[in-house]
């Protein structure tokens, strides 16, 4: 596919533009995509998940912000250029700015899924409940009611926050 702007180079970036509530997909080469800076990047594709400028676009109109991560020294504006955070603490330091962006990217800002073993997390509780509910259904189907009652009690205690 050729770039829809210059018609010369290979298109390797997809840009979704919203104009008057109408969604338009553009397929551009890297150079042209960089030049068209005012668009909102939604779905990049290409060999290395080209993500340059992913977050930079919407900030140009705003006054420069001087958020800084105390842990690694990264400034928010630095993040906007690279789309990469400097450390795990950056997510806390830039939360107020990053949270809406993350929400737009993923459509959700609440982790569901695996939790690492050495982390004690609140996420693991809903996960645990989900798993127990499956077990509960299975034991009911097998007509193992004693077992089912135990599982039900365990779910209840997790739900009240034991």
């Amino acid at each position, binding site marked *: 596919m050729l770039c829809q702007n210059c018609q010369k180079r290979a298109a390797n970036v997809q840009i979704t533009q919203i104009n008057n509530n109408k969604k338009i997909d553009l397929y551009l080469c890297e150079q042209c995509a960089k030049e068209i800076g005012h668009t909102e990047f939604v779905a990049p594709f290409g060999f290395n998940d080209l993500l340059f400028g992913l977050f930079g676009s919407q900030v140009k109109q705003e006054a420069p912000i001087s958020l800084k991560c105390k842990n690694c020294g990264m400034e928010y504006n630095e993040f906007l250029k690279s789309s990469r955070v400097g*450390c795990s603490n950056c997510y806390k330091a830039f939360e107020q700015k990053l949270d809406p962006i993350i929400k737009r990217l993923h459509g959700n800002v*609440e982790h569901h899924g695996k939790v690492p073993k050495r982390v004690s997390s609140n996420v693991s509780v809903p996960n645990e409940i989900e798993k127990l509910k499956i077990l509960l259904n299975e034991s009911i189907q097998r007509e193992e009611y004693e077992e089912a009652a135990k599982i039900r009690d365990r779910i209840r205690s997790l739900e009240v926050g034991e």
Partner: protein
Amino acid sequence: MSRNKMEKGPECDIAVSSRVRLARNFADIPFSIKMSSKHHTELIKRMQEIISENKSQTKLMFADISAMHPIDRISLMERHLISPDLAETKVNCGAFINEDENLSIMVNEEDHIRIQALFSGIQLEKAYSVCDNIDSIISEKADYAFDDKYGYLTSCPTNLGTGMRASVMLHLPALVMTGYIQSILEGCNKVGVTVRGIYGENSEAVGDMFQVSNQISLGRNEEETIASIDGICKQIIDREKSLRLQLYKQNIYKFEDRIYRSYGLLLNARIISTQECFKYLSDVRLGVSMGIIKDISINTLNDIQVLSQPATLQKISGKPLSQDERDIKRAELIRSQLQSSEDK
């Protein structure tokens, strides 16, 4: 080079491979963009200790990517064992790779580590369980950067949550021939699934290969994500199959002519570029998949696809080759692979 060990997975004529990768970072070390060379070295050392302590697991060999010749690095990339980024990076990096060459852990990529598993056919669940297993072992020995709300913390916010990308490589010549591929691309985008062509120099998808993967990693758990990619791929495969049959019935001579011509070209060419090779391979793959060509296996075609790439070709030859030399060498390799496949 143990590609032949790759067992044939379900639907492997259309679903070439399934891959799952997990992005992970350690809590006590800054992320890649803020890492010093001291951090890079420390991280490799830490991972070597974790992996060597673990005796029960499948053997993982450490490949010191930094010490490798560029051709060897790119060859690892062409064999999908490391990412293009890792092949090109200037920082101290490495990868742990298992004997079957279907599991690798990249160190000092965009994230501290990236665990990835690759299987033939449509086998995302299996690929995930392999990654999940090694991930759990690592997480017993070190603290990952993790947040209740955002899940696994990653260098780029697009990987937050599970840190997982699940992808399937599909061969879709009939969808391309008929132009229906466009509506599939659009439809998938609406449900948070990315489909992208594997692009070459000439901007069209190379050999009608497309990669289907999840766009979103936060808010959906691993099983849900895998189930949705799996379901979408199966639908695409079904549509591809019925279109193939339709095209075949419409004009059997034209259909078979295209396939046999491409086969003939691969069997007889003396000079062939990567681009051309992939184009004809696509037709031959279609022919094998539909039972029109019976004397070659899908595995032979997969081998050719991997071995005929520029860096791997030079690695086999044991010396650097100019473009012209590569095109000649490639034609030789294809002929010998196809002939030995016919003999079997």
